[in-house]
């Protein structure tokens, strides 16, 4: 435990030093990035030992605030999230050194570094907290530091707007935490987690579950609580986006899982609710991602999709637990957690890739890019690995998590009674559709941005990212491959994380054997690829290999403007789901015999933002404006109202 406290101290200290030395940018960046690296190194041993069934760590000391005591602990669930937080934190910190160079003023960068280090420290504390007050403080620190990071580029209006949206949304979500902890803590008058849950009435437990679902669902970006996410994540500097999308939204999943371990046996409808929310999030998330024109917004929406997949896994696990199907419960929960880990790596990787594109070209507008693969080979390779992984394609890590969720749903379909089987069966086509749409979305993201010809001078003049940025991307890409290769070995630690929710002693060896089989097929595939590549090389050995223009059916002067764009690539699918997406088109079509310049503009805004939240907030604002009658700005009237109030109180008291 002492190592963990040291790690926390290292994070805080390095942030402070980075702020103090912000006038010396190189030193500040070095100090700011050193903290996460040191913390990672310090926390690695305890986290790994807890994950491999070592003893649970705990730490306790009194504190002079009311109800207060610092209670920290590290069990397997916390350890898993801790590892993800610190690994991503360290990698994005290294990337950030190169990415932040020259951005805005030195002071702004100093503030960004301290916020970055404190954000990691706050998430660290969230997973360690075993007392409601510590948890809430860490949660709030996480919200505030990430707000500062999102607002880094605050000279741009839309960034300020995104940052405020985020701040409001995250606090609206946290509001639900207060009654949650109150309900949980009230029976025993204690806010220590270990006292929660005992003797909870089923009705109260359900209310607690709903409160947790809203609070943590907002953090996780589940539809319909996701509106802040596609605003906030793209606005932040890219290495921060990677941390926010890869790790911070997972704190919602952590919170939900933590509460589920406290709330006792779930009724069936909890699982169904999660399945429903997850299915809607996954489908809408990927559809909106496909319709976006901005690479970082696209990635942000895809986070909604992936958290939806995680929710589907959790829901399957809960349904399995409710109907007593241990296999289904264990596989669903393990799959969900594995997907959490995987998504952290490939989404982090993709955001770093997008950052490298932004750094090199100054834009993330998909339709202004193109041809970057020859100009940024490392970034392109990394982005390709991330894209294949996020589509859930074998042989990379994305497949493993989704496969386990599929398996859980299919096992549930086959082995449970009809009532539970049909909803679980619905999961199969949902996951398949989401997978197919993800493929469309990420072939668009990779193909339009990195392949073909550059669509703008900025893209044509792009350069490869600097050494620290390349290092960050390469590490994450290798991690995606490594997780895929080690997946059978990772099952046991992850099963250990969900052991309080689902016993899995029996299913883990079977699942590991299956994953070895998957690896066998992957090995066969790789071998075959290698052989074919060699055959191809051998065939072309002494032949003529020429380079020509792209064949455009006889047209000899193709230009980059004649290429398919991201919008045209996505158009058939976007049109098919027009009723859900409500894409706005402004079109000036060429007509008559001498057509003028034509023009087409499409924009897909968030439907739930426009249909639910904006009317809601405008209504609230109108309501509150009524109170303006009290606010004249004339001192006499204020004094009068003070006097009237005092007299009224006096009369009430002497009555």
């Amino acid at each position, binding site marked *: 435990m002492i190592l963990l406290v040291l790690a926390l101290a290292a994070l805080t200290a390095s942030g402070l030093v980075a702020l103090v030395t912000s006038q010396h940018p190189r030193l500040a960046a070095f100090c700011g990035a050193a903290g996460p690296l040191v913390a990672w190194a310090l926390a690695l041993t305890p986290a790994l030992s807890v994950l491999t069934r070592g003893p649970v760590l705990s730490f306790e000391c009194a504190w002079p605030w009311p109800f207060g005591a610092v209670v920290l602990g590290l069990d397997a669930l916390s350890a898993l999230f801790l590892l993800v937080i610190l690994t991503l934190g360290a990698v994005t910190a290294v990337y950030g050194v190169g990415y932040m160079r020259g951005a805005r003023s030195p002071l702004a960068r100093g503030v960004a570094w301290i916020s970055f280090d404190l954000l990691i420290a706050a998430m660290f504390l969230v997973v360690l907290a075993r007392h409601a007050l510590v948890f809430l403080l860490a949660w709030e620190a996480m919200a505030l530091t990430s707000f500062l990071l999102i607002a880094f580029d605050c000279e741009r209006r839309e960034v300020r707007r995104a940052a405020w949206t985020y701040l409001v949304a995250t606090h609206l979500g946290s509001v639900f935490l207060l009654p949650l902890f109150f309900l949980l803590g009230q029976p025993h008058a204690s806010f220590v987690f270990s006292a929660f849950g005992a003797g909870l009435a089923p009705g109260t437990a359900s209310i607690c579950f709903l409160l947790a679902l809203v609070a943590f669902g907002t953090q996780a970006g589940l539809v319909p609580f996701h509106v802040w996410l596609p605003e906030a994540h793209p606005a932040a500097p890219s290495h921060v986006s990677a941390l926010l999308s890869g790790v911070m939204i997972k704190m919602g999943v952590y919170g939900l899982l933590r509460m589920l371990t406290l709330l006792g046996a779930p009724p069936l409808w909890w699982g169904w609710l999660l399945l429903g929310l997850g299915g809607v999030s996954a489908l809408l998330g990927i559809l909106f991602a496909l319709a976006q024109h901005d690479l970082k917004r696209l990635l942000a929406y895809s986070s909604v999709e992936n958290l939806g997949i995680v929710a589907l896994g959790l829901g399957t696990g809960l349904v399995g637990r409710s109907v007593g199907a241990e296999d289904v419960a264990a596989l669903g929960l393990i799959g969900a957690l594995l997907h959490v880990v995987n998504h952290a790596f490939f989404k982090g990787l993709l955001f770093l890739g997008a950052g490298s594109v932004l750094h090199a070209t100054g834009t993330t507008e998909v339709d202004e890019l*193109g041809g970057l*693969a020859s100009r940024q080979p490392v970034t*392109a390779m990394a982005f*390709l690995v991330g894209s294949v992984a996020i589509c*859930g*394609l*074998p042989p990379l890590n994305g497949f493993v998590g989704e*496969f386990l969720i599929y*398996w859980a749903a299919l*096992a549930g*379909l*086959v082995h449970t009674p*009809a009532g539970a*089987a*049909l909803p679980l*069966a619905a999961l*199969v*086509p949902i996951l*398949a559709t989401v*997978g*197919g749409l993800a*493929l*469309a979305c*990420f*072939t*668009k993201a*990779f*193909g*339009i941005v990195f*392949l*073909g*010809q550059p669509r703008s001078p900025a893209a044509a003049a792009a350069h490869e990212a600097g050494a620290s940025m390349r290092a960050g991307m390469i590490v994450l890409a290798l991690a995606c491959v490594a997780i895929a290769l080690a997946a059978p070995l990772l099952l046991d630690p992850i099963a250990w994380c969900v052991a309080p929710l689902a016993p899995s002693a029996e299913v883990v060896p079977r699942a590991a054997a299956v994953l070895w*089989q998957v690896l*066998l*097929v992957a090995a066969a*595939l790789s071998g*075959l*690829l290698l052989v*074919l590549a060699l055959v*191809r090389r051998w065939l*072309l050995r002494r*032949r*003529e*290999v*020429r380079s*020509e*223009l*792209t*064949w*455009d059916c006889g047209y000899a002067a*193709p230009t980059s403007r*004649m*290429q*398919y764009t991201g919008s*045209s*690539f996505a*158009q*058939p*699918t976007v049109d*098919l789901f027009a009723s859900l997406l409500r894409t706005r088109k402004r079109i000036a079509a060429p007509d008559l015999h001498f057509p003028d310049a034509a023009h087409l503009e499409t924009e897909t805004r968030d439907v739930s933002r426009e249909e639910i939240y904006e009317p809601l907030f405008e209504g609230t604002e109108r309501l509150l404006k009524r109170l303006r009658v009290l606010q004249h700005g004339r001192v006499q009237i204020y004094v009068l109202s003070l006097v009237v109030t005092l007299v009224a109180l006096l009369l009430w008291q002497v009555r």
Partner: protein
Amino acid sequence: MSALSPAWFEIGLALLLAPLLNSVIARIKAAFAGRQGPPLLQPYFDLAKLLRKGAVYSSTTTWIFRAGPIVAFATTAAALLLLPNGRVAAPVAFPADFVLLAYLLALGRFFTISAALDTGSSFEGMGASREAHFAALAEPTLLLGLAALARKTGALSLSQILPTTSLLAPEVGLVAVALAVILLCENARMPFDDPTTHLELTMVHEVMVLDHGGPDFAFVQYASALKLWLWSALLTALFLPASGNAWVAGALTVAGVFAVACGVGVVESSMARLRLLRVPQLLATALALTAVALILVVR
């Protein structure tokens, strides 16, 4: 899993005979049109000729373009490892293995689409866009159909599901119809795509590979023939009776695959290509059929 087991023999047979499917289809279509049609071995001649050629690459392309055909071929061949034939279990079988099969094919698609976008040609972009669009709508039908059969047979692996299905059950019939529709879509056949037209604008799959030539194009052709074999064998496995000698079942599978090819030829001769806007409706119908099958099974 000895090297001479019927399963491996079957895979060898698939690799050997897959190109023949295309000439069978061409023959059927020729017969409908009152022509004689190309020689049965024409696809092999084509492949041999392509393999002996050099290559021309667009100056826009990168290594992705060169990787596309290889990945498409390798993924299809790897997917064959998971497919049982008749009563014979596949070389690799485990619970939910059909998910891996579908995703392997998707990996091939990812690289085919990327290779098409790599050329920067608007034609190939159009084909890629449509391929991605159709695939997203076709994928759920395959998995839901097989999931319904899993519930029906109480097993989770293709090697246990397929040999025990019998076509007499109405659910299996529904799934078979749906899978037949998806077969036509996935293999770029009528009524989804017209593989023989010479107008690039109307094609989906063929237009994506316009720029490939030489050995690369040979891989593309071979891979698409193999994919047709894979799908036909999957469909055939639904029909085959569960009893019989393994070698007989293997022979029946081959016969079934060619029967499916004949069926494709008949469909291609008697139907026109659907308008693009109609395609999602047909795919949705196929999905609805599998959903009905599922409800019948779970009931």
